[in-house]
């Protein structure tokens, strides 16, 4: 899964073939098809794999007894850390999952394949509003602000446009996002 993820993220979905993936795994193409009947199925399994990975990280944060402000910062740190240490994960999300929707239309309707991740973001928002830290608003207006901002920064980093490391932006971004979402 990890090998396929890295290949897709670096070469793009359509330029990566099953023989490429089989080769990287030192596996025969025929055997590869025993595991995944098509490239589309493999692509869907990979996005679920990423969602579970990020969802578990966010769940740990949600279950900590800390303020919404601190949670906001920790979520940003986890996202950027993943983008730095496992850039293929975020690249896959941005460049494969969001850019090739036709691959995911059957079996990944709506947010089904990123459910674990989105559920934790929903819990972060819901608990933030419930305790009075965050302002009540439509879920997607808040979700877009948060994830669009982070995705945009990682994209800029991937394009070598950012002059500094992602970590150097955590303080400002945490301040901006919390200020935008909070009741303060």
């Amino acid at each position, binding site marked *: 899964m990890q090998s396929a993820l890295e290949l897709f993220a670096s070469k793009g979905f359509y330029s990566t073939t099953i023989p490429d993936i089989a080769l990287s795994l030192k596996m025969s193409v025929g055997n590869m098809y025993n595991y995944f009947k098509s490239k589309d199925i493999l692509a869907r399994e990979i996005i679920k794999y990423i969602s579970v990975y990020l969802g578990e990280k966010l769940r740990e944060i949600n279950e900590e007894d800390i303020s919404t402000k601190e949670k906001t910062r920790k979520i940003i740190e986890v996202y950027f850390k993943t983008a730095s240490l496992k850039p293929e994960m975020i690249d896959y999300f941005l460049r494969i999952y969001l850019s090739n929707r036709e691959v995911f239309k059957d079996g990944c309707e709506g947010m089904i394949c990123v459910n674990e991740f989105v559920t934790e973001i929903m819990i972060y928002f819901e608990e933030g509003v419930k305790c009075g830290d965050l302002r009540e608003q*439509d879920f997607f207006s808040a979700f877009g602000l948060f994830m669009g901002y982070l995705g945009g920064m990682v994209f800029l980093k991937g394009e070598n446009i950012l002059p500094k490391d992602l970590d150097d932006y955590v303080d400002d971004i945490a301040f901006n996002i919390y200020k935008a979402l909070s009741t303060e």
Partner: protein
Amino acid sequence: MKNKMRVLWLSAIACNGNTHSFLNYPFLEQFLDDFEFIYHPVIDSHYTLEDIVSKEIPCDILLIEGAISKEFQRADVSVVDIIEKYSKIVQKIVTVGTCATFGGIFRESGYSETSGLHFDQDKPSEKFNDLLDKTISVSGCPVHPEVLVNTLYAIKKSAVLKLDNFLRPKEFYAYTIHNGCTRNEYFEYKVDNHQFGELEGCMFYDHGFQAPFTHGSCNKILWNEVNSKTRAGLSCMGCTEPTFPKQNLFSTKKNMAIPENLPVGVGKRVYLTLAGISKAFKIDRLEKKLFDD
């Protein structure tokens, strides 16, 4: 002469809604063949209220309607004193409706220390602890007439009723109002395009619907044998619960679009995961009117 059970209907701080509901019981004639009211506020009875408070009339079941306060009197006698007198001689006490059970809307009546017989909302009240073993609660605003009558028949037949933590018969209150709701398909797929009075749509997301966390049998034992609030297109307002009445009954309290109160016993993470999956599907049949032109 048939051996009828003798029943005292004592109205405390009440709107008489439970009486109105009871009068809609479809087999009232048969009921009155098996039970007789020694006193009822609106049904002819053998004794007057003055007789009830000045004498000790033989009685088998004490029904209490309305919230209770020491200050509140009937025939110049505190309802608490009337309850204490008759509770000693009856087999069973039944708190009829949400006010008699939890205080209900008449907790706001202005009388001091107003509550239900054994509960002030969900907090146990110790005033009548010695009566706990005798009491059965049938909450609701108003009580469902069949729930009341069937409870009385169970007492008459000496049937053992298993009770929940609020002394309500599990036979009627172990379920939620969601059970039997004809809109369950809309709930399953999170289709909420509802307007009050319409047949279509789930009312949980926007219209203040409380059935998934309200205990009762409204959608199992229909009102007037034909209908329920949810079937008629109106939200369940949670009228059997200690928290009744809440505020803003026609809108769902949400935090960032997520309902604050979830189906009873369902964890938030589980609910959101399921909801996320269900919402991904667009079921055309459920988006349309049931009777399209």
